[in-house]
C-alpha cells in the first residue's frame, strides 16, 4: 500500500473512533433534550381558568375573589354557547323523527367534545371522577380538544393493501341548515375568553399530591417514595459496603477465601436487576416476612443488596488511592492499625467513598425492576415516615412505567409523564454530576 492510502486509513480510523464518541454524545442529547423540553412543560405552561378552579377546589390554592371575577368573565361567553345548545335541542324537538334520530346521534359527540373542552354543561350531574369535573386545564390541550370539537376523525379503509388513513370531516358541515352551525365558529373564536389562558409556573407539580390518578395535581408522593427507597437502601448498604471495603483492602490476606469473596462481589454486580426483585419477593417478603406484603423496607433492603457491590468497589478504590506514606507515617508515630484506619486512612479516603455512595444513591433512585415486586404501587398518597416499615409507596421510576404503559388515559397525561421522567433524570444526573465534581476536586487535591 502506498503512503497516501495508509495515511487516509489512519485518519479514517481516528474518525471512526471520534465518530463513535460523537454518536454517544448525540444519543445522550437526543434522549435528554425532548425529556427536558417536554418535562419543563409540566411546570411552565399556559394554564386555563379550569386549572385555577381545580387548584382552588382540590388544594385550596388561589384567590377566591379574583377567581370569581374571572369565572364571571368567562361565564358570559360560555352562557352564549350553552344557549346555542339549548336552542338546537328545542329545534330538534320540532323535527320529524328520522331527521331527529340522525341529528341526535351526531349531537352526542358534540356535547362530549364540548364537555372535554370547557367542563360540565349546565344540567349535567356532578361527575364521580374528578377528571370529568373540569375542562382542559392546559391551553395546548384545549387547542387539541377544540380540533376534536370542530372536526370528526374518520378512518379510510378503502385501500386494503396499506394501513388505514385518518381524515377529518368538519362538524359544521354536518349540522348545515340548523341553528347549531353557529356554535363551531363561535367556540373557535371565543375559546380564549371562555378559558382565560395565562402563562403560569406551577411549582405545585413537585409538591402537590396527585388528583384522580395523575390527571391533575403533582408528583410529590412519587418523589417522596423515591427518596425513602433510595435513602433506606443507602442506610443499609453504605456502612456494610465501607466496612467490607476496609476488610478487603487492609485485612484480607491473598488466598482462596478472599478471592472467593471477591468473585462473589463481581457476581452480585452482574445479577440482572429483575432477579433482585424475585429474590426480594421470595426472601424478604415470603420468607423473612419483614412486612405483610410490599413495603418500603423490603424495597430498600432489595435495593441495598443491589448497590452493595458498587459501594464496595468505589470504597476499595478510594482507600487504595490514599498514598501509602500517610499510613506509614501514622503507624510509625505509634498508632494501632485500627486507629490508623479510623483517623488517617478513612478521612483521606472519605471524598472518594462519598463519590461512590452518591453514584449508588442515584442508581438506587433510578432502578425500577427490584421494586416492582417489593415496594412499588401505582396509585397511592404520600406515606409518612412512620409507615415505611409496613406500607408500599409510589415511586418515580415505577410510576413512569405505569403512567406510560398501563394508565387508561396515557396519551392525555404525557406532560405528567415527561415531568416525572425529568424529575427522576435530574435527581440522578445531579447526583452523578456532584460525584464527578467531587472526584475532580479529589484528583486535584491528591496532585497537590
Amino acid at each position, binding site marked *: *500500500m502506498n503512503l497516501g*492510502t*495508509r*495515511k*487516509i*486509513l*489512519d485518519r*479514517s*480510523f*481516528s474518525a*471512526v*473512533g*471520534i*465518530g463513535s*464518541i460523537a454518536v*454517544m454524545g448525540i444519543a445522550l442529547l437526543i*434522549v435528554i433534550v*425532548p425529556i427536558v423540553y417536554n418535562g419543563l412543560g409540566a411546570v411552565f405552561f399556559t394554564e386555563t381558568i379550569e386549572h385555577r378552579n381545580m387548584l382552588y377546589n382540590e388544594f385550596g390554592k388561589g384567590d377566591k375573589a379574583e377567581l370569581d371575577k374571572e369565572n364571571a368573565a368567562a361565564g358570559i361567553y360560555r352562557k352564549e354557547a350553552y344557549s346555542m345548545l339549548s336552542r338546537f335541542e328545542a329545534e330538534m324537538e320540532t323535527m320529524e323523527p328520522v331527521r331527529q334520530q340522525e341529528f341526535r346521534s351526531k349531537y352526542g359527540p358534540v356535547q362530549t367534545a364540548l364537555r372535554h373542552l370547557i367542563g360540565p354543561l349546565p344540567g349535567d350531574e356532578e361527575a364521580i371522577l374528578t377528571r370529568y369535573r373540569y375542562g382542559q386545564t392546559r391551553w395546548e390541550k384545549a387547542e387539541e380538544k377544540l380540533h376534536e370539537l370542530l372536526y370528526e376523525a374518520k378512518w379510510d379503509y378503502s385501500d386494503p393493501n*396499506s394501513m388505514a388513513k385518518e381524515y377529518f370531516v368538519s362538524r359544521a358541515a354536518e349540522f348545515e341548515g340548523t341553528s347549531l352551525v353557529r356554535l363551531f365558529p363561535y367556540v373557535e373564536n371565543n375559546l380564549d375568553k371562555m378559558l382565560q389562558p395565562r402563562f403560569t409556573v406551577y411549582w405545585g407539580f413537585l409538591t402537590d399530591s396527585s388528583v384522580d390518578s395523575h390527571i391533575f395535581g403533582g408528583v410529590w408522593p412519587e418523589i417522596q417514595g423515591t427518596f425513602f427507597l433510595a435513602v433506606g437502601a443507602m442506610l443499609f448498604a453504605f456502612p*456494610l459496603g465501607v466496612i*467490607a471495603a476496609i*476488610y*478487603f483492602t487492609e*485485612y484480607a490476606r491473598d488466598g482462596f477465601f478472599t478471592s472467593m469473596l471477591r468473585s*462473589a462481589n*463481581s*457476581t452480585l454486580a*452482574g445479577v*440482572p*436487576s*429483575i*432477579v433482585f426483585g*424475585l*429474590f426480594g*419477593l*421470595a426472601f424478604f417478603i415470603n*420468607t423473612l416476612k419483614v412486612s405483610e406484603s410490599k413495603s418500603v423496607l423490603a424495597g430498600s433492603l432489595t435495593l441495598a*443488596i443491589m448497590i452493595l*457491590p458498587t459501594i*464496595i468497589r468505589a470504597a476499595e478504590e478510594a482507600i487504595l488511592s490514599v498514598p501509602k506514606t500517610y499510613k506509614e507515617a501514622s*503507624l*510509625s508515630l505509634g*498508632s*494501632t492499625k*485500627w486507629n490508623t484506619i479510623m*483517623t488517617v486512612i478513612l478521612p483521606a479516603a472519605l471524598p472518594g467513598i462519598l463519590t461512590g455512595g452518591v453514584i449508588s444513591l442515584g*442508581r438506587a*433512585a*433510578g*432502578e*425500577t*425492576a427490584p421494586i416492582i415486586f417489593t415496594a412499588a404501587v401505582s396509585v397511592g398518597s404520600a406515606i409518612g415516615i412512620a409507615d415505611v416499615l409496613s406500607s408500599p409507596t409510589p415511586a418515580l*421510576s*415505577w410510576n413512569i*412505567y405505569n403512567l*406510560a404503559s398501563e394508565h387508561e388515559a396515557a396519551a392525555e397525561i404525557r406532560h405528567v409523564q415527561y415531568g416525572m*421522567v425529568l424529575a427522576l*433524570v435530574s435527581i440522578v*444526573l445531579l447526583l452523578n454530576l456532584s460525584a*464527578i465534581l467531587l472526584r475532580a476536586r479529589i484528583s486535584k487535591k491528591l496532585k497537590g
Partner: protein
Amino acid sequence: MKTEQACSGNDTEINSIVMSEDVRKESGRSGAFVVSAGKRKIQKFARTVGESTLLLIASFVAIVVFFIFYFVAVDAIPYFQLRGFAEFFTSTDWYPADDPGKFGALAIIYGSLMVTLGSTLLAVPMGVSAAICLSDILPFSVRQYAKPVIEMLAAIPSVAFGFFALVIFAPLLQTQGGPILMWAWWVLAAPFLLLAIIVISDLLTANMEDQNKRQMMSTTLLVVFGAAALGFLYWVGSVLRQIEIMSGTNALNVSIILSFMALPTIVSVSEDALQAVGRELREGSYALGSTRAETIVRTVLPAASSGILAAVILGIMRALGETMVVWMASGNSSHIPEPWFNYLEAVRTLTATIAGDMGEADQVTGSERYHVLFAMGLFLLVISFFSNLVSERIVVRQRKILSGQ
C-alpha cells in the same frame, strides 16, 4: 508491634512513657505504647473479635449471593418437578393463564437472544472504537470532557430510556421508519464503502512500475468502483425506504436503545484493557514505521483482545438483564418472528415476562405460573453467573500475561 520492640531499652522506655502520657492527654491513642501482659491479652482478644466481625461483614456479600441462588432456585425447582424441562425449552406456546397453562418459553428465550444479539452488534464496534479513541487517540484535555458524557449515559435510569423508546422513538419509527432506515444506511455505509474503494484500487495498482500510469489507473478504478458503489448504496437505500414498519415497538427499537445502555460498560472495561497494554509495545510498533491505526490494529488490539472480550461479555449481560426498556418497548408478543431474523416484529423477553406476569401470577399459593417465572429468573441468574466467571478469569489471565508472569 514495632513500637513495643523499640521500647526494650531502658532510656527509651522512660522517654516513651513520657511521650505516651503526652499523647494520652491529647487524644487518647496511646494504648499501644506500654502495656501490661493482661492488658495485652485483652487487646489481642479485642483485635481478633474485631477482625472476625469485619470478616463476617465482608463475607456478607458471599452469603447474599448464596441466598439469591438458593431462594430463586427453591421457587424455580417446583416448576421443573411438575412440568419437566422439555416444555420450557422446546415449546413456543406461552399461555400461562390457560387451564392447564402452557409454559413454552422458547419464543421468549429467542426474543431475549435476538435483542441481545442486535444490541451487541451495534454496541461492540462502536464501544471498542470509542474505547480506542479514548485511550490512544484523544488528547487528555478532550478525554476529560468525553468521559463524563459516557458516565451520564450510564447513569440515566433504564426507565427513562424505556420511556424514550416507547413515547418518542417508537412513534417516530412507525411513521418515518423507511426514511430513517435509509438515512442510517447512507450515513453508516457510505464512508466505509468509500474507504474500501480507495484501499482496493490502491491494492490493485500496487504492482505497477510506471508512476503516471499507476496514477491514471488508480483514478479510473476509483471512478468505476465509486459509481458502482453509489448505485449499490442507492439501491439498498431505496429498498429500505419502501419498508413500512407496522409497529414501532419492535426488536429493532429495543436493540438500538439497549446498545446505548450497554455502551458505557463496554467502553470503560475495554478502555481499561487497552491502557493495560504498556507503552513499550506501542513505541516498538511506531519505531518499526507503523501508523497509529496499524499500531492499534496489529499490536494493541491483539494484546488487549481478551480484556475486550471480557468487556463484550459484560456488555451482553447488561443487555440481557435489562428489564424496563424491553418491557415497555419490545411489544411483548411471545412468538418467533417470521422470518427468524425479522427485527421489525415485536418480541418478548425473559426479563419482561418476569416483570409483567408476576402481578398476575398468584404470589401466595405458589402456582405453576408463579414458579415458572422463578425458573426464568434462575435461567438468567445461571447465565449471568457463568459469564461473570468467564469474564473475570479472562481479565485475570490478561493481567498476568501483560505483567509477564
